[in-house]
C-alpha cells in the first residue's frame, strides 16, 4: 500500500469509506474497526492519524454520551430522571464506529501525501482542471494569506480594538483589505501564468496506474463489498 499512487489511494479510500458507511448492524463493527486498524498499521504514520483524529474523536465521544440518553425505549439503567437506553447505545456505537473507522482510513492513506500530489491524483480521476488549479493555487498561498490575516488581527488587538459585537465592522474591514490585496496579487499571478504559457492546467502530469495500484484498488473494492456482504449475512 505504501507504494500506491495518489490516484489509487483516493480510489481505495472511496471504496473502503463507502463500504463502511453502508454498515447497518453492530455485528460487523468489530471487523470494521479491525480493518481500519490494519490499514493504519500497514500505512505507518499512525501518530499522524492519532493527532488529526482529535476532532472526530471528540464528536464520537459526544454522540456516545448523548444518544444513549435520548434515543430508544428499552431502559438499561436508571439514575433519577436520567435513563440509559439500549437502542441509543446501539445507535451511538454504530455511528461512532463508522465515523472513526472512515476517518482513520482516510487519514492513514491520504494525510501522509504532499497536498500537491493529492491534487495531481484528483486530476488523474478526471476532476475538472479548473477545480484542480483552484486547489493548487489555494494551497500555494494559504499559509501566506493565513499569516497575513492573523498578523492583522493581532495588530488590531494590540491597538486596543473594540471587542464584542462592536468589533465586527473592524473584522469586516480587515477582511476587505485582505481581499483587495488578493485581487492585486491575482493580477500579477495571471500575468506570470500567461508568460509561462498557461493553457491546460497546472497539475503535475499523471503517471499511468501500475500493477500494484490495480492490486490495491481491486483489494479495496473486494474489502468494501465484503464488509457490505458480512453486514447483510451476520
Amino acid at each position, binding site marked *: 500500500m505504501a507504494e500506491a499512487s495518489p490516484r489509487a489511494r483516493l480510489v481505495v479510500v*472511496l471504496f473502503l*469509506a*463507502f463500504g463502511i*458507511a453502508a454498515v*447497518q448492524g453492530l455485528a460487523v463493527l468489530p471487523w470494521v474497526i479491525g480493518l481500519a486498524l490494519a490499514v493504519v498499521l500497514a500505512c505507518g504514520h499512525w501518530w499522524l492519524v492519532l493527532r*488529526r*483524529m*482529535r476532532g*472526530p474523536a471528540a464528536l464520537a465521544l459526544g454522540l456516545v454520551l448523548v*444518544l444513549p440518553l*435520548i*434515543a430508544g425505549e428499552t431502559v438499561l439503567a436508571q439514575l433519577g430522571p436520567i435513563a440509559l437506553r439500549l*437502542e441509543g447505545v446501539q*445507535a451511538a456505537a454504530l*455511528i*461512532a*464506529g*463508522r*465515523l*472513526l*473507522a*472512515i*476517518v482513520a482510513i*482516510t*487519514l492513514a492513506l*491520504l*494525510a501522509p501525501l504532499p*497536498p500537491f500530489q*493529492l491534487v495531481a491524483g484528483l486530476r488523474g480521476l478526471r476532476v475538472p482542471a*479548473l*477545480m484542480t*488549479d*483552484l486547489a493548487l*493555487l*489555494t494551497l500555494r*498561498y*494559504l499559509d501566506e*494569506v*493565513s499569516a497575513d*490575516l*492573523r498578523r492583522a488581527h493581532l495588530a488590531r488587538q494590540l491597538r486596543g480594538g473594540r*471587542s*464584542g*459585537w462592536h*468589533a*465586527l*465592522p473592524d*473584522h*469586516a*474591514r480587515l*477582511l*476587505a483589505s485582505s*481581499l*483587495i490585496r*488578493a*485581487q492585486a496579487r*491575482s*493580477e500579477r*499571478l*495571471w500575468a506570470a501564468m500567461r508568460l509561462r504559457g498557461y493553457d491546460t492546467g497546472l497539475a503535475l502530469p499523471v503517471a499511468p496506474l501500475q500493477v500494484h495500484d490495480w492490486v490495491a484498488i481491486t483489494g479495496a473494492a473486494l474489502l468494501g463489498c465484503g464488509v457490505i456482504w458480512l453486514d447483510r449475512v451476520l
Partner: protein
Amino acid sequence: MHLPDGIVPVEMALAGYACSAGLVALALHRIKTLPDPQAEIPRVAMLTTVFFAASLIAVPVPPASVHLMLAGLMGVMLGWFAIPAIMVGLFLQAMLFGHGGITALGLNGVIFGLPALGAFGIWRLIGGRWPDVGAFLAGSGAVLAALALFAGIVLAGLPAVIDAGAERIALQLLLIAHLPLALAEGVIVMTLLRVLRRVEPRLVPHG
C-alpha cells in the same frame, strides 16, 4: 457546520455526491459561457484562499467566538465560481484539518453550495438598488439556509429510534446557537461590501 462521516446512511451520502456533481456541472457550464474563464482562475483562487483563511480564524461574537462560514460572501463575490471554490475548500478542509469527511463531501457541498448560489441570486436581484439590504440578506440568509439544510439532512439521516420530541429540541437548540453567527455574518458582509464598493468596485460585480 460540517457534516462528518458515518452520520447519515450511505444512500444519502451517494445522493449528496450526485447533487454536488450536478451543481458543479451546472456551475462549470455557466462559467464556460463567460468571455475568458481561464483569466478568472487566479482571482477566484486568491479570493478563495482569503475566505478559507478567514474561516479558520475565530471571531468573538458574544457570548462565544465563532468561525465565519462566508458562503454568502463567496456567492456574492464569485458568482457561479463559488460552487467549484466551495467544493475545493471542503475537500482541503477534510484532508488537511479533518473537518467534514470523504463520504459527506457531496452533502457538505450541497449544504454550503446552495446557500452561496441563493446569496448570489439575492445580490443580483436587489444588490444594485439596495446594496446594504442585499448584502445583509445574502450574508445572514446563507447561514440560515445552510443551517436548515444541515438540520434537515441530519434529522433525516439519524436512526429512527430517536424520538420526534428530542429531534425537535435538538433542532431548536441548533437554531438558537447559530443565530448570533447569522447576525454576525450579515453585519460583516454588509460592512465589507460597503468598503469594497467604495475602494475596489471591480471586486463586487452586479452591485
